[in-house]
């Protein structure tokens, strides 16, 4: 097993110095509550969701999965005059390792796209593990998508142009959502934007070993997240692909995918493998591996040159996708 990790990009290495007191690479189950109450989540959620009046923001409670509580959707609609054609929709799934966060986390990134491309953003609140293990999170995400597709028109959106998107656990849940929609015959998303997605509960790739104790979200944290979601089934023979999309045997028939990941993070190898398997199944995928990127680098250090490239790549893919 390779032991020498790839170096962090210089600017990202420096940024890690700034955040190391707030976030450490590892997280144990005992840390979950501490991190939930820590400053990090509050900081991420402390955003002007209207983007200085560019969006009209609404929290809407919609039906959850059968027999489960309602879920909350954060709906952000452009305040600019409605175009002739209904707007495309970003259906955003937040990150947080299956155990952290809320539907404000990371939504600023989706709002940036929406501003650029005149889109509606819907960000789903899902129940978190370990209090709510699989399938609660992905079923909430699924229910929110069904509601969004059914009500897109009343929001001024186009139900045929919904892009599902998320980072980290949100990327993994988005990938799982794409599988669920395919297998249940649900509405077909226009594309899936999977940013450094959390895909594989086995936590045993070379990169997961190589980056132990380094950067953000190392194998210890990853084990904590997956174990919270799956309990003792984590890494075992009977994990559902709707929990861990890397477990899916069939990756054909999925909407076009964008995947990216840092070369210096736990998820590198599982993301590269997932993209390869989409191609092997005859699918459409675009893959970027950002050299020296740690997990979620573009969110933590948005000013860095590499982050700017990554964000430009997201927007560029969306622009091409929506132009079709």
């Amino acid at each position: 097993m390779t032991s020498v990790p790839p170096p962090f990009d210089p600017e990202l290495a420096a940024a890690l110095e700034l955040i190391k007191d707030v976030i450490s690479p590892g997280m144990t189950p005992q840390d979950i509550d501490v991190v939930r109450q820590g400053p990090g989540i509050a900081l991420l959620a402390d955003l002007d969701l209207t983007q200085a009046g560019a969006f009209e923001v609404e929290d809407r409670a919609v039906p959850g999965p059968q027999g489960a509580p309602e879920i909350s959707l954060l709906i952000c609609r452009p305040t600019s005059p409605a175009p002739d054609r209904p707007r495309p929709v970003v259906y955003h799934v937040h990150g947080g390792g299956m155990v952290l966060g809320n539907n404000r986390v990371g939504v600023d990134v989706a709002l940036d796209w929406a501003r650029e491309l005149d889109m509606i953003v819907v960000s789903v609140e899902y129940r978190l593990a370990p209090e709510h293990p699989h399938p609660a999170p992905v079923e909430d995400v699924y229910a929110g998508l069904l509601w969004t597709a059914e009500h897109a028109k009343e929001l001024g959106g186009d139900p045929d142009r919904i892009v599902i998107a998320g980072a980290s656990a949100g990327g993994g849940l988005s990938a799982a959502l794409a599988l669920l929609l395919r297998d249940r015959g649900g509405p077909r998303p226009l594309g899936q934007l999977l940013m450094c997605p959390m895909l594989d509960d086995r936590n045993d790739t070379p990169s997961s070993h190589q980056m132990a104790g380094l950067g953000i979200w190392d194998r210890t944290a990853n084990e904590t997240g997956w174990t919270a979601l799956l309990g003792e089934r984590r890494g075992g023979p009977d994990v559902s692909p709707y929990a861990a999309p890397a477990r899916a045997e069939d990756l054909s028939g999925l909407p076009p995918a964008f995947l990216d990941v840092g070369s210096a993070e736990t998820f590198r190898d599982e993301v590269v493998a997932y993209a390869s398997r989409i191609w092997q199944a005859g699918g459409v995928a675009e893959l970027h591996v950002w050299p020296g990127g740690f997990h979620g680098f573009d969110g933590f250090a948005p000013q860095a040159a590499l982050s700017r490239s990554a964000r430009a790549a997201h927007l560029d893919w969306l622009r091409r996708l929506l132009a079709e």
Partner: protein
Amino acid sequence: MKELAGRLTALDPDAGAAVQVIAYFDRLAEARAGVEALVRGAAVLAGVPARLADAERRVRVRVEADGVRRDSDLPPDPAWPAAALTPGGAPALWLERSDAAPSVVDAVILERAAGVVRRVLDRTRGRAPLDDPALLETLLDATAPESARLHAARRLGLDPAAPARALATPDGRPRVLPASREPEAATERTGVGPAVTVLDLPRSWAAARTALRFTADGTAHDPGPRVVYADELGGLALLADLVAPGAEPPPDVQALETATAEAPWLLATLHAVTATTSLRAAAAEITVHHSTLQDRLVHAEHLLGWPVRTPQGRLRLHLALTMRRLARP
């Protein structure tokens, strides 16, 4: 945590923020980050645009607080907090903060960023010429191995394939410039060596030091050219070997000194006679009337004991004035 870096200066400028700033630039340095990343770091941490302008190495980088590079042709505001790249040098790194008094954190950012920027520029673009005495010493030492002299040239930012020249000034510290660059207007006496190949610079340096001895302060007590090109001395250069600095001056120079003690105008007047093409031009040069000049020259001939208005006398005078500079200790 997205805005964490940007929020740093929103904190009280306490030791914690300073420590983070130091750690940030230390990591950039360790990871061998480039100049733009360093300027971006300063901008992001300070929350205002930062700019680097190093005229000597023709480096200009300006990055705004959002991390985007946007260069500007506008000159920096003298009110902005700034730092030099070398102690006592001109400001080269600025934080464009004009709305409030600069904070302690600003000062730490500038100090750390400037230090790393300097090291990166030294590493990537070579030092500015004149900057490193040890390298110059090697470059101008004819006994040093050629490989060492070529290495020194590259480290000093000289193109080893292009001609260069050495410059000598009274402080004894050599300077070397690419031949393509004109020496800036001299504020002190300067001898300029011939343009030669980099390996021939020891010869240019020797010639520059010789030329320096032919220079003058350009004052009434020390009239003459402030800058002398060795190339233009011709046979006069041979005189330098004959008149030792600080030694007993030749009789004609002694005569000049004696005469000057009696007539303070003498040196400037006689220099004008040797440095112009006619007595009328000489009178204009020292702004006296033509007849006044005539009177002065009669007086000077009497004091010196040789004519200064004949071709032979003018040559003798010219040599005497020149030897006077060469005899300078």
